[in-house]
């Protein structure tokens, strides 16, 4: 297993490197001049040229790339064009907010999705199952920003139960503020988790060894909770890794709608000010997070699953 983890780590490094490279070239190969974009339509040519010089855009591409990699290795993501603050410190100061939101979202996603998936599978092909499947279908078809807006419309504006923006002061108030945005992310994630749990459970229930367990005369509840569930939920964990990019995108947009500080708000703010270095930094940080989470999920999966453990 140790070997597996090492190998997985070694695979993650080139992936990360490639990702960062893709981001770099992706942004430079595409048409359009970031300097011009940053300054807006009314900028003079000399101003644009000055900015290009300042941003290093006039250097040859390979030099820009080497410089970019070099500073990345030192954890240097450049300086904000607007505030001149270090991008990395800016990112890390709001990182906990995004982390909190994402984790709370995953919590809600599992809390809602897993039991409903199990429930639905146990009632396969009944009306309840059909209803739950339809609901989950809507869940995977609704973009997070729309759900966020509807949550605000209903729970903040109509019912006045939860605040629609900000983070709040103190633990209870913070939780109160966190609830709606986390639920937004959680509900969308729960639809996927539910569908996956259901299908994974149905696969499991049809396995030969479940028949063996029944033939042993074990109570049905033990068959379900011990033999079926364990093998069902292990693969479900892995989809959180798969869903990570979606989750983070959801977090970005949810932060925007609920006016919460975080990586998403920072990135969106940087769009209005055309703060290129901040945007690039956020993108890199998000990509690193995705690679890291997938790595973690794979490793924990290898620890739980005896088949991989043996290797």
């Amino acid at each position: 297993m140790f070997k597996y983890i090492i190998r997985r780590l070694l695979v993650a490094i080139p992936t990360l490197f490639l990702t960062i490279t893709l981001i770099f070239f992706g942004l430079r190969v595409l048409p359009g001049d970031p300097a011009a974009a940053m300054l807006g339509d009314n900028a003079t040519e000399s101003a644009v040229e000055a900015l290009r010089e300042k941003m290093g855009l006039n250097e040859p591409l390979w030099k820009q790339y080497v410089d970019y990699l070099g500073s990345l290795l030192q954890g240097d993501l450049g300086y904000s064009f607007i505030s001149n603050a270090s991008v990395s410190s800016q990112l890390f100061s709001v990182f906990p907010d995004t982390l909190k939101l994402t984790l709370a979202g995953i919590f809600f996603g599992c809390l809602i999705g897993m039991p409903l998936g199990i429930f639905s599978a146990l009632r396969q092909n009944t009306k309840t199952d059909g209803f739950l499947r339809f609901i989950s279908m809507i869940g995977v078809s609704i973009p997070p920003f729309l759900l966020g807006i509807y949550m605000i419309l209903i729970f903040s504006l109509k019912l006045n139960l939860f605040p629609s923006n900000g983070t709040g002061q103190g633990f209870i108030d913070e939780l109160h503020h966190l609830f709606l945005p986390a639920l937004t992310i959680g509900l969308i994630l729960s639809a996927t988790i539910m569908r996956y749990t259901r299908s994974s459970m149905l696969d499991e229930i049809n396995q030969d060894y479940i028949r063996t367990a029944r033939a042993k005369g074990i109570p049905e509840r033990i068959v379900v909770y011990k033999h079926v569930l364990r093998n069902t939920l292990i693969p479900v964990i892995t989809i959180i890794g798969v869903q990570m990019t979606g989750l983070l995108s959801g977090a970005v947009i949810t932060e925007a709608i609920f006016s919460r500080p975080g990586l998403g708000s920072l990135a969106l703010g940087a769009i209005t000010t055309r703060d290129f270095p901040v945007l690039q930094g956020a993108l890199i940080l998000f990509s690193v997070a995705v690679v890291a989470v997938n790595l973690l999920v794979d490793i924990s999966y290898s620890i739980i699953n005896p088949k991989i453990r043996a290797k």
Partner: protein
Amino acid sequence: MTTLLEVKNLNAGLGEGDYRSLLDQINFTVKKGEAIAVVGESGCGKSMTALSIMGLLPRNIKIKSGEIKLEGVELTSKSQKEMNEIRGKEIAMIFQEPLTSLNPSFTIGNQIAEVLKYHTDYTAEQIKEKSIEVLKQVNMPDPEEKLKAYPHELSGGMRQRVMIAMALACHPKILIADEPTTALDVTIQAQILELITELQNKFNMSIIMITHDLGVVAETCQRAIVMYAGQIVEESSVEELFEKPLHPYTRGLMLSAPRLGNPKEKLHVIEGTVPDPDDMPKGCRFSPRCEFATEKCFAEEPPLEQVDKSRRVRCWHKLL
């Protein structure tokens, strides 16, 4: 010998509306300590018969009528919960694919202990001792070590031994073995068949051996039931059956399988295929493939007739 299990006029089929009969008038008994074979090709209903006895029929297949009595106690009317008292304790079952029949996420020890946990009052200590004991009984090398192993760490033959150990743990009266060696290599098959026979004699256990292989029948069983298209077509002691099969299908089966030691020039052929449950032939179900079929066979279904004390045949033109 006392009768242990009695299956009487068992009918089972698929679905409610467009009912498809899968088992038709299944009648047989199993006596204490005997090994009885249920033979037939795929789709003849042999596994279905076994699952009916276990109360483990798939959800979409229902028993329509008939009785299954274990020592005089009716099983078909029992709830799943009540059946759990019987399964694994009174009647145990092993399956064809030892690889997929064991849960990959739990150790061998855990899976054997489970049977004992729900059928006995043993303490954890006793359960462990007993687990090692049954593994020894199935000739498992280093049984103590094997308790900690996961199924994928064992070979196919070893896994089937674990399945048998699990089945034996509570000393069942009947062991149903559903094609227990079909997925195994021939040298491993010999080991497992020898083991099953050894255990049958040691514990005076009854065995229902479900197989398509007449060789397995001849080597391990005393009595045989031949099934075709959901019906019993012949029942006999194994010696008599191989001496002189009475049903054309039984005879055809025996002649069409190449047999070691006599490489004949030409194999016997049963033309055609097993009929689909959707579209059963009228009259005798074997008639379209039978070389002896007459008009009567195509029109009327023959009854399962008692020929002598121990033989029954379903045929208008028994090969007497």
